[in-house]
């Protein structure tokens, strides 16, 4: 017992002790002092360390101590030392002392007299000490669990979660730890970690039922207790290759309880010279396993949800555009909700179909479904799919819009859509674009000389009225000229340096003047940036912009057989 300290000055009380071993007189107090049957053990000793007397409680505590004998005989050394060091002696220190008696612990408080005799009153503090000790251990465990929990909650990546679990288990619970994930077709992801080392991942093929308790633990249900296994029965793959602690002497398999999702199992290993796992450690390991299991199963569910989202989202995301059929296309998109990558705006470019690739028309579309967020995005998917199916009719914009209108009217969805259809054909170095608006903002044409004109197409929005009408306009783009389709997210962007002002069509036109002759990508980037800066940190609507550009460049103009294109609508 380490507690053997001496502290505090002695008290000023006085007691006179007789050789017989019983108290005959105390200053100012009568004979009947309760010495013999006091509830606390007390013993008196002279300056040389000879026992002068013991009360009943002291006799029970120190059965081998006797009056006239030495303190060292029958009393613990810490008490004898404290007596020797009692103040007032040459080199002596101060008063109270603490120490162990058998498995109990006591505080000893001295009361000295002027002749150098001392009465030691002993107060048991075993319970308080044990409680303090338990409190310390519990506090450490709670703090450790807290640290472990926050470490476990960092990543939602299943493999990273397994790494964190293995590292924490190896550092705090065992000499090495292995996390085994439920596998597919007999192959299981494993993470090994030895104490103080870095976790390593691997995938191994094995039958979990070869390790006692592992198969059941990996099932996730029904709950099974931790299981001790014979270290000699542990297969080679279980022990980390860098396990540098001699023989594995104890192995325990603990299930990682997932919540509806099997999370795997944790195997703890200890090596030579280390005690096995005691009951408290096992309990703590189960607490840890519960947290690790919850973290790993959450990560696994997040991964599954992410995979589902990605699969569903793939067709809703705006396409990556590039040059198609000798025409440059570029688009930019930003959803109004930062956490979602999709919204109610959309664009698509469908390459020319059929055999006549050379002279064929590509169909570019940009549109805006009323509303924003995921529900609007789902409808953009339907509109895009419908338009895709209508591609064979793409030379007749009115008919395409009419059929789309019918489709939207008959669907249960009450939302409507505005869009622009653009049939695009390369003719020599020029690009002919046929544009029809279904209730959408008219496209802009940017000429090589910086002139910006609105395309004269207009029409009814789609999905509201049983009959719709629209007018089509033709535009010819000379090399370096661009036709720009955009949604009202650009022009209705609210912001500006003083706030509350709309970006507006004039600013868009002004911006385009600076973009004359630029590649499609640079134009959409520029427009998107200006609108985003206009909005700043404020809320914005979905933003979509699509540029159709006749490529500029030496070997393209070389094939030019026609005069400069003119605005014909």
């Amino acid at each position: 017992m380490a507690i053997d300290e001496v502290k505090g000055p002695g008290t000023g009380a006085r007691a006179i002790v007789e050789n017989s071993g019983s108290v005959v007189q105390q200053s100012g107090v009568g004979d009947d002092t309760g010495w013999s049957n006091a509830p606390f053990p007390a013993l008196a000793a002279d300056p040389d360390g000879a026992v002068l007397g013991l009360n009943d409680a002291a006799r029970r505590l120190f059965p081998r101590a006797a009056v006239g004998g030495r303190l060292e005989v029958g009393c613990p050394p810490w008490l004898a030392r404290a007596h020797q060091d009692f103040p007032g002696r040459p080199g002596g220190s101060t008063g109270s002392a603490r120490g162990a008696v058998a498995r109990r612990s006591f505080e000893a408080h001295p009361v000295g007299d002027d002749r150098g005799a001392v009465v030691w009153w002993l107060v048991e503090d075993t319970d308080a000490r044990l409680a303090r000790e338990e409190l310390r251990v519990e506090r450490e465990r709670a703090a450790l669990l807290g640290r472990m929990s926050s470490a476990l909650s960092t990543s939602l990546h299943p493999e990273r979660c397994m790494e964190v679990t293995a590292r924490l288990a190896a550092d705090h619970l065992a000499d090495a730890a292995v996390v085994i994930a439920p596998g597919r077709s007999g192959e299981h992801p494993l993470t090994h970690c030895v104490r103080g080392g870095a976790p390593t991942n691997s995938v191994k093929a094995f039958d979990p039922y070869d390790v006692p308790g592992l198969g059941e633990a990996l099932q996730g249900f029904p709950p099974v207790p931790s299981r001790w296994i014979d270290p000699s029965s542990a297969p080679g793959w279980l022990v980390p290759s860098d396990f540098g602690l001699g023989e594995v002497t104890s192995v325990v398999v603990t299930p990682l309880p997932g919540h509806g999702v099997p999370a795997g199992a944790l195997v703890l290993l200890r090596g030579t010279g280390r005690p096995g796992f005691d009951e408290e450690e096992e309990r703590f390991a189960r607490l840890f396993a519960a947290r690790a299991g919850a973290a790993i199963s959450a990560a696994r569910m997040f991964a599954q949800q992410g995979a589902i989202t990605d699969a569903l989202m793939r067709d809703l995301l705006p396409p990556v555009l590039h040059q198609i059929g000798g025409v440059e296309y570029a688009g930019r998109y930003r959803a109004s909700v930062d956490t979602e990558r999709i919204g109610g705006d959309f664009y698509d470019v469908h390459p020319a179909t059929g055999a006549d690739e050379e002279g064929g028309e590509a169909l570019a579309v940009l549109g805006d479904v009323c509303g924003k967020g995921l529900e609007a995005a789902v409808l953009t998917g339907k509109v895009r799919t419908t338009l895709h199916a209508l591609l064979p009719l793409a030379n007749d914009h009115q008919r395409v819009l009419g059929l789309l209108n019918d489709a939207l009217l008959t669907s249960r969805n009450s939302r409507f859509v505005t869009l622009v259809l653009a049939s695009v054909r390369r003719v020599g170095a020029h690009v002919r674009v046929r544009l029809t608006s279904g209730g959408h903002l008219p496209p802009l044409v940017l000429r090589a000389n910086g002139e910006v004109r609105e395309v004269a197409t207009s029409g009814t929005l789609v999905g509201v009225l049983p009959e719709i009408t629209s007018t089509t306009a033709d535009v010819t783009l000379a090399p370096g000229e661009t036709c720009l389709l955009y949604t009202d997210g650009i022009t209705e962007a609210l912001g500006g340096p003083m706030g509350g002002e709309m970006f507006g069509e004039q600013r868009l036109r002004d911006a385009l003047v600076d973009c004359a002759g630029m590649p499609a990508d640079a134009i959409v980037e520029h427009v998107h940036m200006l609108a985003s800066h206009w909005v700043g940190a404020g809320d914005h609507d979905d933003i979509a912009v699509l540029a159709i550009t006749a490529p500029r460049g030496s070997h393209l103009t070389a094939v030019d057989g026609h005069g400069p294109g003119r605005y014909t609508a």
Partner: protein
Amino acid sequence: MNATDTALGCMDLLWAAVRAGDEHTAIDVVLDAYARGLDAESLLLDVIAAVQRRVGVEWAANQLTVAEEHAATAINERAIAALTRTLPRREPHRGRITVACVDGEWHALPARLLAEVFRLRGFRVDYLGAQVPTPHLITHLHRTGPDAAALSGSIATRLPVAHATVTACQAAGVPVLVGGSAFGPDGRYARLLGADLWAPDARTAADLLAARPLPRPRDGHQPIDDLPHLGDQEYTMVSRTAKLLVKAVYTGLEELLPVMRDYTEAQRRHTAEDLAHIVDFLATALYTDDRDMFTGFTSWTAGVLWARGVPAGFLVPALDLLTAELRDFPRATGLLAAARAELLRVPDSRSPDSPTPDSRTPRRRPHDPGTTT
């Protein structure tokens, strides 16, 4: 001819093609140089990045408009794409790295070049580009579990967003490497914001990560620990009321300076934009608690206005009006007083140690060309 001469010659050719807006020649220049044996990393960093740096310099000298800069960047992007398509495919043998720009950043090119250099060095790279909202980035980190995230930023006023992103990545258990002119020429803001690593350029970044993987961040780190001065809420107040401040100062200036009443629409807009940048920088300097940042910006703005023949006379009154608006904010008024003193000390406000354009937001341009790669 040695490699440096080849790179220099190639850079001149590429610059000419980019300047002429000639995408095909630009691609030919890059592919020819590769075919003649110039290595891909050198092409990316000593040729393409060098041209992009020159774009920044020319822009600062008022030789390029923002739109032209976008065109030049688009052509450089195509040149990179053409080059990387011709490179032999190799299986990555190093860790996985996510490369993205700080949200609100428009200069994707430095990040793109960094991503390509990482790929050349054998890393497995996920390149997310610019305009990545932080929630997307964090979801991506959880989905892919990379060994590090590399964040590129060239706009100093995005540092508060960069800080939020850095701490979010770290909270997701991913260490963060940052680079770009926003973080200061010596990386001081990278350290301030608690990034795990700062690199002055793409080569150094790749060298550092190849030499030693970054350790996973410690848990229990709170962002406020990095910047205890944020407790006074001055940054929050100034950034939240930025547009109102601009409006108040603009109105005040119109009363003080009769000449402003005759401004054209364009002049009004530019003045309002200049004021918005000043307030942005003031907010950022409050965030970083860096007096030099704000003083540097106002001096530099004065220099740019002077260089472009725009009267900078409104700057000192603007700072005075801001001081009056923010009289209850001691840190803000301290920054304003220091900036004002510096403007008065240097009459034409072009002190030789003014910050370089690549880390500052210039007049008429709500962004600046990214020049750090």
